[in-house]
């Protein structure tokens, strides 16, 4: 197998809360290969968002600790994002304090991550309406992405490509959508637009963090289908994060199951689909709840 595009090793994230220091990501390791879809399955609060947003350095919240390795294979070779960041916590060699509220820390993250944002990876969140600039048309936001991905394009070419992206995310009447604001579109349309803005940036890795949460059932199925279609060419890798086992099984090549900040198991999606191999009891319960073949529970 080729070297992974991204590998996370022994990621630990802790927050300082009123009840003291709380470890919310506890030694998570996983990797994604070029063009692969890794499904990250877990109930709410299991640490999926923190584990994946830390790839972008966008961990929300108050000062805490992050340690481990986030290794990315970029055009310039391998970098460890965490090692690039100066140690803020005294004494710890690998410990890095993520201090979202600390401007200085944010600026350090900014300096380190700048070359990778968008190019190496970007993200699509839940709440598609809130993920788009409310005061800018969809078209203009797409234009920004397109022209960052290819600065050589002139205005007309940028707009043509933007409209093309709207077509690729299967929005009917892309010209009208390009001229619309987020509040004029449905949640599903906004998520398609958001996916277009993210992909137009041409990232090598797309992080989709529960992109269907909050959408109607039929719209959810459409969005999941759209991801399937968009990733068919295998030009991009994706982390698909969801609490819905069916969505994950439909899209992913490999799956990790998370709970309480830990990875419980890692398996091929095919094995999971066909009830092959031994299952962690928690995974088995998820399969059972979704009326899927469990196979052999460990």
């Amino acid at each position: 197998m080729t070297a992974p595009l991204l590998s996370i090793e022994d990621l630990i994230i802790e927050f300082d809360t009123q009840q003291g220091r709380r470890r919310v990501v506890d030694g998570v390791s996983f990797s994604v290969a070029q063009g692969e879809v890794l499904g990250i399955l877990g109930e709410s609060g299991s640490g999926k968002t923190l584990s994946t947003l830390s790839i972008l350095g966008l961990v929300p919240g108050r000062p805490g600790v992050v340690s481990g390795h986030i290794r990315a294979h970029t055009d310039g070779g391998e970098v460890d994002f965490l090692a690039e960041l100066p140690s803020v916590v005294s004494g710890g060699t690998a410990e890095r304090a993520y201090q979202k509220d600390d401007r200085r820390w944010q600026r350090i993250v900014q300096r380190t991550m700048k070359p990778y944002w968008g190019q190496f990876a970007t993200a699509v969140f839940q709440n598609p309406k809130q993920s788009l600039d409310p005061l800018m048309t969809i078209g203009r936001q797409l234009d920004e992405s397109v022209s960052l991905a290819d600065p050589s394009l002139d205005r007309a070419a940028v707009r043509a490509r933007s409209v093309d992206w709207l077509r690729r995310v299967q929005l009917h009447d892309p010209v009208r959508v390009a001229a619309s604001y987020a509040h004029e579109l449905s949640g599903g349309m906004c998520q398609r637009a958001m996916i277009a803005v993210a992909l137009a940036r041409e990232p090598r890795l797309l992080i989709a963090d529960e992109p269907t949460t909050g959408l109607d059932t039929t719209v959810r199925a459409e969005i999941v289908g759209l991801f399937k279609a968009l990733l068919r060419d295998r030009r991009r890798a994706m982390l698909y994060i969801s609490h819905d086992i069916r969505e994950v099984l439909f899209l992913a090549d490999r799956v990790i199951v998370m709970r309480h900040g830990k990875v419980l198991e890692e398996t091929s999606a095919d094995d999971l689909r066909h009830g092959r191999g031994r299952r962690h009891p928690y995974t088995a319960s998820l399969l059972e709840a979704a009326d899927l073949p469990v196979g052999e529970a460990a």
Partner: protein
Amino acid sequence: MTAKWSDLGLRLSGAVVVAVMVVGLVALVIPYDPADAVSYDSLLNPPSAAHWLGTDGQGRDVLMRLVKGTEAFFLPGLMGGLIAVVLGGLAGAYTGYASGPLRSALVGLLQLVDTLPRLVFIILLCTIRNPSIPLIAVVAGLLFVPTVATVVRRKVEALASEDYILAHIAHGFTPARILLHHILWLQCWPLLVRQAAFVFGYVLFVETGLSYLGDYGVQEPDPSWGNMVAQVKDLAGAGAWPWLAPAVAIVVTIASFLAFGNLVARKGEEALR
């Protein structure tokens, strides 16, 4: 205030603002020699076809002096508003985003300027240096920079955790673009309009005030709404037009600019939601 009243207020104040702008621009190109305008044949005439607002104690056309009097505050007011909004906007964006010694120094400087009592400072400046009105307008604009910077900084800080700003960062949109375009331009324009209108009104107030008092500001025979009103001191009830018209103009213009700025900003902020 109901929507209907605020709409009416917006229209009325907007009409005055537009009128002042037009007159201000026209005044810049009309030739006027205050010495020439003196006419001892027509002192303190009431309004007539020849002199719509009558004539003053030196027989000068009041309307003409009213129009020409805008020159004293029009460009200075615009300049003061622009300085406050541009420098305040940039300072607010920078202090809302950056960290480090430069930011701390700027925050300290803004706090210092913010503690200055504006009017006292300007009058003190006048007694020391007797600066021109444009210079006073620049100073007034600078004195309002901290106010603008504070509201912009708060906005930047409040928006920093919005999903779409995080998404923009994740996509690799540059901080300058996010700050200046997405936040300062798109989100802050209503409050910038409000502040610019306020500073314009403030400059008008200071200019006419100083010119009224007489030792500073615009001196006779050059016209200012302020020194026109000052004629009330000499006329002793002989005629109301020469000072009443500029007095009304001052009050209506200042009130309209403040109301217009507030109403436009409120409408803008409603639209943002």
